[in-house]
Structure formats: structure tokens, C-alpha cells
């Protein structure tokens, strides 16, 4: 059994498991941090961005100044942003039988895999994962396609040139494989290959392997997967949460008795407590708005935003913010808010009971009804006429490289009254802000990552007791920035096996058993063909030595054996003692039987009748296996 590791990003994994002649891809996350190296795509012409100086080498050579621009000491690629794909060369991806998706964040590379590698298999995911995943892809495609950029930079990717660039560009990996965003057509085609599954549904793959999604508690429809045969079990844990937010709680019990547990998608901010962060988020938001400033929250259109809106719903009246408008701007804002209300079966118990009343499970329905929350597909159109300040704007993309958020950064960045609050943990906020420097607006970093932290992981591992743990290498050492924090790593026995991008791991697995079914009665022995000619020669037929005779066990009590011999008409029996046992002599038949604890040896003349008689007598005292 082998694990091919196609992604080095611990929270956006892409691994391929070969198990019992099936090839199973576990997630296909898309590393979007590569976009941080690019200049933002403004919705409206930004004089600041277009007037940034070109970057030149130390010796003054400026041949790259069309491709690279400099902003406050950082260098950015002036081109359509590109994404870092999972490894496509390590394994022939057309041999992948199935792709298992664990949550909507971990499927963003799906179109690249299903549309361009000769993939012909099936993708399995839950319904909320597919619906919200579609929204995320739609938003991404929309953000990038609505601001077409003529320029496409490729010169800088040349290995010899990349060496000369300042970091982080110099250190960017696999730049030659970076790709532009897919199209909506590719998204639709990729999504059409998905088969919907429910939690605890057992899916048979070719009768060899069974896969089952389990609730992972992290997002709507998010799942961990069990991949098992009748005697082996691999658990794939990806993006799980033990906190009570909106999704159904994590199913831990079903992960027990795994031979191997692949652990990915832990919290990216292990030192931050999500509850504390939400509190800080609310108080900073209130403070800014009270001072007449605007609040910008760069976010994804689904996920934590539901929890934030719920917190604000409880908070705004007590904080005296009832007159402050909340805007949610995304091409999929409406869909996201609507979809969140119809997945009752995938929600936590409290929200489920609300649906039974029947009431919408999320209070943002009420925020919309009372006009406190308004949503728009983009800042063009209705929004511009409704727009009132001070206000709070939720919009994407959290990388600050594309989407409506770019406009608000340009618009509000110059005033220290305004605040941008980062809640999504996927991007370093300092890097995200780099192309907007110098910036007057306040920046608050409240990353809310509800995924498992290391304390929860060690508790989980103690409880489910996997024989082996496999995880990305980042989890086997403390984070580089906090190298003294030995508690911020996975601690288990035996030590976790770690992987990095483009590595192949042989999993410590010994298959011992396979399932078969036996019939209550043995089938009739295949009868020999009995043609007349054949029968005559039957004695000449060479016997098939492949017919297995049973093994024997036990020992032969001499006295009883002799009695049995006598009973069967043997006379003149003499017994001699030897060092290891006895010798029984049948003088009349010129036969000698050596009997020892673990062996019996019959030495006789070539008399088949006699031999068989003696054999049957011996066998009576032995057990057959």
C-alpha cells in the first residue's frame, strides 16, 4: 500500500492512496497562496497600481520591468494571478479510480485534475460540499474573468531569471507548473463527475474496497473518510472540528481501530482560540463603526461568515449597532445565504430543531428580512445607490488579489478611521496587505480557524488508537516562527510518518486475511471422466500430487495401538522400547512400525492392502488438520 503525496500544503491536501489494486485520490486542494506574488486585479482602473515602478536588477538591467512591479520594497508579478497545482507528474492521474472530497475548500483543484489528466473515474462528495464548492469556484472564476488582463507574464518563471529575483519570488516552488484559473465550462464538467453521498453511506469500489464519509464537524457537509477492506482500515482525517459551530458534530467513534490514520487539515493558527477571536472581531468592529469608520472583512462566501453573522445578530443590538448597514458582496452571496438554510440534515442539533418548528436554521434570514444585512452580486449596480457609510462590508477574496475587496482596500485604505479585519486563516495578512502599502487604515488580525489544534489531536489519537499516523511534515515539528513550542506538533507513539510534496510513502501495512464465503456443505468432487478406454488405463494415470492431504497431529499410545492391531487380526506382535519411543514388530508380516512422540514410520513389504490397513489403524489415533 502506497501513499503518493501530490501537495505540500497541509490544509489543502492532495494524496493518492493505492490500496488493494484501487487508486484513490484523497482531496484535491488548490494552493492559492501563489496569488500573493501577483499584483491585485482592480475592478476599476487604479492609478496607484498602474503607476507602480517596474523592477530592475541590481545592475540596473530593467528587462523585467514590464512583468515585475515594485511596491514598498516588495516585488509583484503584473499578470493574471496563477495557482499552484498539485503534482501531476508523480503518478499517472488517468489511473485514478475515484476522488474522495472531504470539504468544499479541498476540491478547488478538481477541474485541473478531472479535465486535463485523462481522468475517467468518479468523484464522491456530500451534497453541501458540492453545492458550496460550486459557489466558491463560481466566485473565483467570476472574480478573475470580469477583469480581463491582457498581460501574461512568463519571463520571470525562467529558472535562470527566477534565481535573480528577491524573495519570496526567488523561493516560489514549481512556478513552471502554475496555472491560470479554469473556466466555468471546466467547472461544470468537473462537477458533473461527482456522485453525491451521505454520511455513513457505504460505497463499494469494485468489490475490493469500501469507502465511507463521516461527519467531520468543520463545515457544512464536511467529511472524513474511511477506506477499508474486510481486514484493513485506513482513516483519512481532513479538516475536522470539535467546536460547536453550525455543522453536524464530528464522528470520532467510527475512526477507531484504524491501521493507518492519515491526518491533514489541522488548524493553521494553533495559538489562537476561535472563541476569543470572534470576541475580538466584534469589539473591533464596534469600535471602528462607533468612531465613524468602515469595516472591511475579506472572506469566503460560505463557512465562517455564517457564524460571524450569527454572532453579530446577537451582538448588534446590545452594542448599539442596529442602524449600521451590513453588506455582503459576492457573485454568489444570495446563493450562499439561501443554500445555508436548506441543509438542515447537515447542521448541528440546535439548528436542526429550529427547522422542525419550522424556522430557518440561521438567523441571517432575520437580518435580511429586517434589512440589517443586504447582499449584492457586485459593487456595481444596486449597491452603489444603496451604499451608506459607515458600514461593514463582507466580501472576497481573502487573498486581497481579486474580487470586490480590492476596490474597498483602495477606497478605504487611506483613512485611519477604517479597519480591515482578517478572519480567514488561509493567507498571511501581512503578505496580503503588501501591495497596498503604505496603508493608513487599521489592520486587525482575528484568524478564526475551527479545525483541530494539537491538544485536540493528541486527545483524538489517544481515543481512536490508530496503529500508525501519517501526516504532512509540517506537523512533526514546531512551526518555524515558534520553534520553542514543542507542544505545537503531533506527539504520538509510534512517531507519525511524515510526507512532503512529491514523495511516495510505503505505508506500514501487512495484509493477512481476505474475505471469502464458505458453503455449509462441500461441493461434489469433480468426477473423473469415465470413458471405457480411460478406465482401463486408470491405474496408469499418474496421480495428481496437488491434492492436499491433511496434516496430522497427536501421538499414538502404544498399548492401545497394539490392542487395536490384535483386534484387527494381527498376531505375533512384539514391542521393543527405544530411546525415543517404541518399535512394534509384526513378525508374520515382516513389518516394523516405529512409534515416537511426533512421528510414526511404517516399514513393510510392498503390500498395498497391508499398508492401507496399518495406515487406517494409525490414523484412528491422530487428528487431521
Amino acid at each position, binding site marked *: 500500500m502506497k501513499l503518493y503525496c501530490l501537495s505540500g500544503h497541509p490544509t489543502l491536501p492532495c494524496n493518492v492512496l493505492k490500496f488493494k489494486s484501487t487508486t484513490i485520490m484523497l482531496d484535491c486542494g488548490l494552493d492559492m497562496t501563489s496569488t500573493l506574488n501577483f499584483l491585485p486585479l482592480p475592478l476599476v482602473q487604479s492609478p496607484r497600481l498602474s503607476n507602480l515602478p517596474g523592477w530592475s536588477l541590481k545592475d540596473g538591467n530593467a528587462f523585467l520591468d514590464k512583468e515585475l512591479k515594485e511596491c514598498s520594497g516588495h516585488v509583484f508579478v503584473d499578470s493574471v494571478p496563477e495557482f499552484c497545482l498539485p503534482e501531476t507528474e508523480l503518478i499517472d492521474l488517468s489511473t485514478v479510480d475515484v476522488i474522495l472530497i472531504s470539504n468544499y475548500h479541498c476540491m478547488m483543484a478538481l477541474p485541473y485534475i478531472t479535465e486535463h489528466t485523462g481522468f475517467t473515474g468518479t468523484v464522491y462528495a456530500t451534497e453541501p460540499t458540492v453545492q458550496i464548492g460550486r459557489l466558491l469556484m463560481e466566485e473565483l472564476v467570476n472574480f478573475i474573468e470580469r477583469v480581463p488582463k491582457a498581460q501574461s507574464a512568463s519571463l520571470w518563471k525562467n529558472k535562470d531569471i527566477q534565481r535573480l529575483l528577491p524573495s519570496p519570488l526567488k523561493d516560489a516552488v514549481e512556478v513552471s507548473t502554475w496555472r491560470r484559473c479554469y473556466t466555468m465550462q471546466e467547472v461544470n464538467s468537473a462537477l458533473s463527475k461527482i456522485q453525491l*453521498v451521505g454520511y455513513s453511506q457505504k460505497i463499494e469500489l469494485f468489490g475490493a474496497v469500501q469507502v465511507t464519509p463521516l461527519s467531520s464537524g468543520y463545515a457544512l457537509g464536511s467529511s472524513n473518510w474511511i477506506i477499508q477492506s474486510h481486514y484493513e482500515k485506513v482513516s483519512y482525517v481532513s479538516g475536522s472540528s470539535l467546536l460547536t459551530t453550525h455543522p453536524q458534530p464530528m464522528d470520532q467513534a467510527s475512526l477507531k481501530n484504524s491501521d493507518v490514520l492519515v491526518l491533514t487539515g489541522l488548524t493553521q493558527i494553533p495559538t489562537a482560540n476561535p472563541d476569543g477571536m470572534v470576541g475580538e472581531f466584534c469589539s473591533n468592529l464596534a469600535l471602528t463603526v462607533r468612531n465613524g469608520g468602515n469595516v472591511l472583512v475579506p472572506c469566503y462566501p460560505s463557512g465562517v461568515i455564517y457564524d460571524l453573522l450569527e454572532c453579530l445578530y446577537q451582538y448588534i443590538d446590545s452594542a448599539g449597532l442596529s442602524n449600521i448597514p451590513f453588506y455582503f458582496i459576492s457573485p454568489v452571496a444570495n446563493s450562499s445565504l439561501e443554500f445555508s438554510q436548506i441543509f438542515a440534515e447537515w447542521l448541528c442539533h440546535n439548528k436542526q430543531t429550529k427547522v422542525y418548528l419550522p424556522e430557518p436554521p440561521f438567523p441571517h434570514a432575520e437580518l435580511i428580512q429586517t434589512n440589517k444585512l443586504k447582499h449584492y452580486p457586485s459593487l456595481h449596480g444596486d449597491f452603489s445607490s444603496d451604499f451608506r457609510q459607515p458600514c461593514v462590508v463582507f466580501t472576497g477574496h481573502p487573498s486581497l488579489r481579486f474580487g470586490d475587496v480590492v476596490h474597498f482596500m483602495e477606497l478605504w485604505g487611506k483613512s485611519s478611521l477604517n479597519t480591515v479585519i482578517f478572519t480567514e486563516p488561509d493567507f498571511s495578512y501581512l503578505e496580503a496587505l503588501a501591495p497596498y502599502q503604505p496603508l493608513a487604515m487599521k489592520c486587525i488580525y482575528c484568524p478564526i480557524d475551527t479545525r483541530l489544534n494539537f491538544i485536540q489531536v493528541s486527545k483524538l489519537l489517544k481515543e481512536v488508537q490508530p496503529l500508525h499516523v501519517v501526516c504532512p511534515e509540517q506537523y512533526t515539528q514546531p512551526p518555524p516562527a515558534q520553534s520553542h513550542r514543542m507542544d505545537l506538533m503531533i506527539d504520538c507513539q509510534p512517531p507519525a510518518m511524515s510526507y512532503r510534496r512529491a514523495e511516495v510513502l510505503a505505508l506500514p501495512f501487512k495484509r493477512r486475511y481476505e474475505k471469502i464465503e464458505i458453503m455449509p456443505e462441500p461441493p461434489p468432487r469433480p468426477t473423473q471422466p469415465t470413458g471405457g478406454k480411460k478406465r482401463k488405463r486408470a491405474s496408469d494415470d499418474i496421480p495428481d500430487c496437488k491434492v492436499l492431504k491433511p496434516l496430522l497431529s497427536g501421538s499414538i499410545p502404544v498399548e492401545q495401538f497394539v490392542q487395536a492391531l490384535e483386534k484387527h487380526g494381527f498376531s505375533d506382535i512384539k514391542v521393543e522400547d527405544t530411546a525415543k519411543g517404541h518399535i512394534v514388530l509384526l513378525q508374520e508380516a515382516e513389518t516394523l512400525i516405529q512409534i515416537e512422540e511426533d512421528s510414526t514410520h511404517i516399514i513393510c*513389504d510392498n503390500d498395498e492392502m497391508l499398508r492401507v490397513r496399518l*495406515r487406517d489403524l494409525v490414523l484412528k489415533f491422530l487428528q487431521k488438520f
Partner: protein
Amino acid sequence: MPEIRVTPLGAGQDVGRSCILVSIGGKNVMLDCGMHMGFNDDRRFPDFSYITRNGRLTDFLDCVIISHFHLDHCGALPYFSEMVGYDGPIYMTHPTQAICPILLEDYRKIAVDKKGEANFFTSQMIKDCMKKVVAVHLHQTVQVDDELEIKAYYAGHVLGAAMFQIKVGSESVVYTGDYNMTPDRHLGAAWIDKCRPNLLITESTYATTIRDSKRCRERDFLKKVHEAVERGGKVLIPVFALGRAQELCILLETFWERMNLKAPIYFSTGLTEKANHYYKLFITWTNQKIRKTFVQRNMFEFKHIKAFDRAFADNPGPMVIMPGYCVQGTVGHKILSGQRKLEMEGRQVLEVKMQVEYMSFSAHADAKGIMQLVGQAEPESVLLVHGEAKKMEFLKQKIEQEFRVSCYMPANGETVTLPTSPSIPVGISLGLLKREMAQGLLPDAKKPRLLHGTLIMKDSNFRLVSSEQALKELGLAEHQLRFTCRVHLHDPRKEQETAMRVYSHLKSVLKEHCVQHLPDGSVTVESILIQAAAHSEDPGTKVLLVSWTYQDEELGSHLTSLLKKGLPQAAS
């Protein structure tokens, strides 16, 4: 002999009071717990004393499954769990769990408040009963205990209706509940995979009818409504608040929109409005089209259809009203049953002049649909419930002819017993399996095959291992049984030469076997050892000692008889 036993307590050759007991693999499951619309006495509920006369039902039933929220499938549930006494799990889908208590409460109100029945279940009992419910997802495999598992499939029919597969080991039963094989305007079609159950228990409401196309019925209905409205008349459509009401609402709404009609449409029970909310929140259970478009427009938010208020009753002009289902004893029921003169309160006699029309929109599978489902699931046998005996008889014949499977239709209280031949799953050690595979022939999953090994049964764990491994695991030593036979040969030559002759002879005869001449002068055939020795008395005779173990017996005894015939003279 293992068997599956099925006993309907209700719905056996009858429609209503669905309640079927199934015993499978030592587990007892109750399917549905319905009431009968046609009775007001004890017969309205299933006779649970059949399960046990004294003692808790919990001890006799492993679980209860409710297929959907219609009262003829769940109406007796609070009586069963709270008044008779059952504390085990009750499984149903989420929408059923949401809507079921509302219908039960409604039913209770009519029975107690309107009809004044005593000794009926209370509101608290409904609540307590619902606490025992475990909600299931579609296709989720629910492990009731270590051996019993159930799985829900989409059934169409009404919101949240499901078919259930009940499985113990390799034996399984599928219960369809009520289902619809053709998608309608708000629900999808029932679907099941080729799960090959031992028994399929299917409803057979429309066992003999093949209904005309749905479009014709819809067109007919709309035409009649339209004509009445055009005449300036009022249309009353008594329809059950959940399910068909939504179907007709969507139908009327789209028609009104297309024809640009202005006449108001009202639904009169509060229940329908609430019901629409459920449909909005459980949109994932509706059909493809509604699910796809719900963000742009939720089909259950009606523009033309409004809640009815008593004050509208005397409004002039045309209107369409959808009052709730007409329960027995109501004016509506009397009119529907054809009464043309009504005696109102205060002895006033009213003549009925309105036209009364019947139209069937119920969402059950017709004969074609039932056959289709049987074809999909490929059961070993079929059992019919929820239908009239006469019609069942017809369908039974048809199923037996077309699918060549036995078909049953027990009456209430009658037990059907099906013998099953369960397979015995065992774990075979990979070593043994590989040894088998090495002998050529890959195992064919569909054909039995003979192989030798030792079956070790520990706890409930069956393992098939090689004999060697079994001896080792059990800590037993192997007992070697060896034979040595003396074969006398007439040969004056030296022993070495005799051995050489034996070798070349055997080599030429036993082409398939490995024959070797060892340096010490002995000859081996596979693991059989042949040594030549001089005869103690007769120098012209040599003695061949042929030695083999019990495991090589066939070959050993074959060799001795071969050698006994002597060696060919021509040998050099």
C-alpha cells in the same frame, strides 16, 4: 434452517393501518405503525398484543421504522410507544420527523376535541414518543446494533418518504412504504440500487391500474377549474394539506401565471401554510427542477395563493378554495359521498346543486411502476401489502410470471416464512489464498471451489488458514506418518546401476514430476525417496526402499506399483 418471517398486523390485503413485523437473522423489526381511517374502534390501531401479551414491547423489537408521515403509516405511534410501551429506537427521515408530530397532534385534536374520544394519546405522549426517534439520512447505513443495519432510499410519494433496506449479515429485506416511480411537479421518482434483497415488501395500491399520462390528468383538472372560474363560479378542492396540496398549488400557480388569471386562490387550513415552510426548508428532498431553481425562485413561495379567511366566504366573484381533507361526518364528506340534500343545524334542509368531480392525483406507483421497482431491486421474492386482495392476486401472478420469483400476499395476522441459505463469511489467510492461486486458476467469485485448510472459530470470528498455521496457532506439534515399502527387483547388477536404471525409467515415465538422482546414489521423485540395496540372501535380487510421507501417499503408492512391474530391459 435460517429463515425470514413476515407478519402484517395491518395493511395485509388492505389499505390503511400499515404495520408489518419482520424477523430476520434473529432480529425483529416493525415496519410502520399506522392507524386505519375506516375504523373508530379498536381496529383502528394494529393489535400489538400479537407481539407480546405481557411484557414490554422493547424486549421483543429491535427497532421500529416509519416510512413517511401519512397517518396510515405513523398514526398509532404514540399509542404504541407510550400507551402500550416501547422504548427502543424509532427510525425515520428528517422531514418525517419534522412533520409527523404535527399530523399526530392534528389527528389527536380531531379525535379528542371534536369526536370527544377518551383514552386517546395526549400531546405530551406525542412529544415523548418523538424523543425516541432517530433521524436518518438517505443512503446512510445506520447500525442499529452490531448485526442489524438499515438504509433509507428516496421514495417520492410525499416529502421525506423513504424505502428501507433491513440487513442482517447477508440477508436483507426491502420495505417500500408508499412510493412513486414517476416524478411529479414537486417530488422526484423513487430509486433503489440493484441490492438483491431476499424479500421485497411493496405497496400495491394501484396493483391493477396503469394510469393515463399525468399530463392528461393535469390538463383535465385545470380545464375543469378554469371553466368553473370562467363561469364566475367558486371551486372547492378538498385535499390533504401535506403533499397533494403542494402539488396542486404548484400546478395552479403556474397555470394562473401562464393564463394571466386573476381569480384568487385560497388554502384554508393553517396547516398548509406551515406545511409550505417545511417544503421550503427541506428543498433537498424535492425534485431536480425545484432544487435547481430555488435560489432564484422558491416554488413554495406562491404569488397567487393566499391563506383563507372566513370573511372571504361571501365575497362575490370566482375563487378557488382548497379546504383540508374532509373527515368523515363533515358536510364536505357528505357532499363528496354523493348526498344531494343536506340537513343543516336548525333543521334547515339544503339542496346541493354544485357539481362534484373526482380526480386522482395520489402519488403511488401504478402496476408498471411496481414492476419497474421489482426489476430495479432484483429481489429473490416479493410480498405485497397495502392493497386490495383482488388486485393483489392479479399483480402477484404478473410478478411470478415475469420475474420467476415467488410472490406472497398474507392477510393481517398471517405469517409468511421464507427459508434462506445464508453464506458464511470467513477470513482466509493470504498465505493460503496465494498458495491456491499459485496452482493456476484464479478464484472465480461466482463459482464454488474446493480447497483444503483449517477453519478456526474464535468468538464470532471465523478464519480459514493453512493446516500448518493452524497447528502452529493451536500450539500442536505435527505428527509425521511415514511409509517405507520394500520392492524386490530381479537385477544382478550393482546397487548403483540399479539406482541409475530406476532413475532413467522414472524420468521417462513421470514427465510431469521432478525426478532427481542424488550424489549419494538415491533417487527422488518430488519428496519421495528411493534407495537401492542388496538383498541379504539373493545376490540376483535388489531391494528398492521406497519411502514417503502420508501427505504424498497417492504418489508413493503409485510409484511402488509402478516399480513392482519391473524395469524395462532395454535400458542401457
